[in-house]
């Protein structure tokens, strides 16, 4: 008989929590309740290249504003932009600019309000080979022949190198999945808008996975953010055209754009950001926030 008195109470509590859960679910379906209880939440999803950076921002921002919880998820810039269009995010992290068609869709979805773009860091998208690979530099045209549809280069010997540990001489192309902003950026910057990727590349889901795989595979070549370099791989120099001097990926060459694959990393807000989001963005662009960019291995927007 003891529990008969408790049961209605528990039932009520269950029902109440269900109702609360539902009404919250309607507005923000991906957010879990913030840890601090009453605090506000900023949800950021997107670029895998930027996920470590945004995570570091989130952790440091917590020290400054304990009442604001910044929730970070990866998945690729495409995932972030899709989430922005669907209206389930406060900020989308993207390692490429939004396409005009995406901006149009987002604008339609949000009652004519255009998404707002914030360049928050710079990156020299690096081309990595295995550390034993003797290749030092490559021209962007050759890179396009390796990665592009109907490209003519598929052997290391065509680039004039013999790679130790790669008996088959085949160039193994490591790339990113098509939800990746890096994948889209690399296609546009290297292959141009009118050329597709050659099918059959090894598509990895993360920036780190690309570098890890290249580090374990002597025959491989891959592209990933400059912050992901490890001792197992070697970033090679790029020349804008054959005959021009090749440039190494560095903070200097990212800043003065002498490196062919220098790009910006963005945060997108679905419209004018809410006050607490705006405050976060201001902090990200402040010297304090930009120092974290350097710590992670990228380049601050205004140089260091």
């Amino acid at each position, binding site marked *: *008989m003891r529990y008969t008195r408790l049961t209605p109470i528990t039932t009520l509590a269950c029902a109440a929590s269900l109702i609360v859960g539902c009404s919250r679910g309607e507005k923000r379906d991906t957010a879990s309740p913030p840890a601090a209880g009453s605090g506000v939440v900023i949800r950021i999803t997107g670029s895998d290249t930027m996920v470590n950076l945004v995570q570091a921002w989130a952790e440091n921002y917590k020290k400054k504003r304990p009442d604001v919880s910044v929730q970070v998820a990866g998945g*690729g810039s495409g995932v972030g932009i899709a989430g922005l269009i*669907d209206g389930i995010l406060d900020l989308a992290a993207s390692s490429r600019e939004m396409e005009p068609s995406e901006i149009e869709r987002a604008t339609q979805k949000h009652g004519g309000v255009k998404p707002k773009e914030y360049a928050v860091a710079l990156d020299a998208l690096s081309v990595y080979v295995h550390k034993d690979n003797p290749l030092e530099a490559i021209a962007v045209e050759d890179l396009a022949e390796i990665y592009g549809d109907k490209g003519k280069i598929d052997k290391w010997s065509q680039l004039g190198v013999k790679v130790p540990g790669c008996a088959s001489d085949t160039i193994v192309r490591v790339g990113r999945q098509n939800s990746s902003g890096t994948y889209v950026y690399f296609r546009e910057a290297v292959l141009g*808008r009118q050329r597709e990727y050659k099918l059959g*590349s090894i*598509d990895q*889901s993360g920036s780190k996975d690309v570098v890890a*795989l290249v580090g*374990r595979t002597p*025959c491989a070549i891959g592209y990933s953010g400059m912050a992901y370099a490890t001792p197992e791989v070697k970033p090679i120099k790029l020349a804008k055209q054959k005959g021009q001097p090749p440039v190494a990926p560095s903070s200097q060459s990212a800043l003065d754009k002498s490196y062919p694959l220098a790009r910006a990393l963005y945060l997108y807000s679905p419209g004018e950001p809410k006050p607490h989001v705006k405050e976060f963005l201001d902090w990200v662009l402040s010297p304090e926030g930009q120092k974290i960019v350097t710590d992670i291995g990228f380049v601050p927007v205004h140089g260091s």
Partner: protein
Amino acid sequence: MRRRLPHWVSRSFEPLIEWTIRLCGWSAIFFVFGILFFVFREAAPALTSGLNLKEFFTSQNWRPDSTIQPQFGILALMAGTASVTLLAMAIAVPGGLGAAIFVSEYCAPKTREGLKIVIEFLAAIPSVVWGFVGAMVLNPLIITATGAPIGINILNGGIILALMSVPIIMSVGEDALRAVPDTYREAAVALGASRWQIVYKVLFPAAKNGLLAAALLGVGRAVGETMAVLMATGHAVQIPHSLLDPVRTLTATIAAELGETVEGGLHYRVLFVIGSLLMIMTLAVNLTADLIVKGIRGRQDA
């Protein structure tokens, strides 16, 4: 402390319990049809809005996100699924059935218990962990052993999937063998048959249905597996020419790409078409298995 419920309460509970149990039974059918309906409903608009079915099945160009001209050809993906599944089955069916025969017929009861625990532990390893083993351990091994340019390929995925299917094939196969009455074995021994002759001439025909079911359950696991093949096969869209070529499977494509699609877009719909295709494939496998088993049983009864 616990008091017995009055008689009238337990009386009125009984139909309630009966109905709950009945609901549990029916819910399986309800869920199967519910899922079928949902997947087909999401997929159907693709067929009327721009998906060229001929291109879909015969082209190997899978470029769903292209800004120039999106292409939805799944030939290479189907080849990927087929090649990895076939290799996995070529390893796992003999391996799993062999293990089942050894465990049920050859080994001492103590060894049997130990072996079963270990092999069934294999089944409890999450598929992501298997994928990890494929990408981190097998990849360099395959490169050094075969001289292949890359170690995440059909061979890698096939081995990983085979290891994942062996426990299922083994435990279902063993049950089937042990279900054969001992009188069969005794009769065979009395006729002077050797152990292998008993297995080959007596147990195989007697346990045919169960063994077939074991193999087909293994196929089902292999076709539907996603995470491990995503990590172990290389995720490369191409028609393979050798066991050492990386491939991409249908399931891995859905897993990798569904997150970035905008709900209701063509890419989203096409991924659901692939999902429907996978469901039709597994349904077909199960149905054939059922029919074969029924056919065998029918003939035996006659």
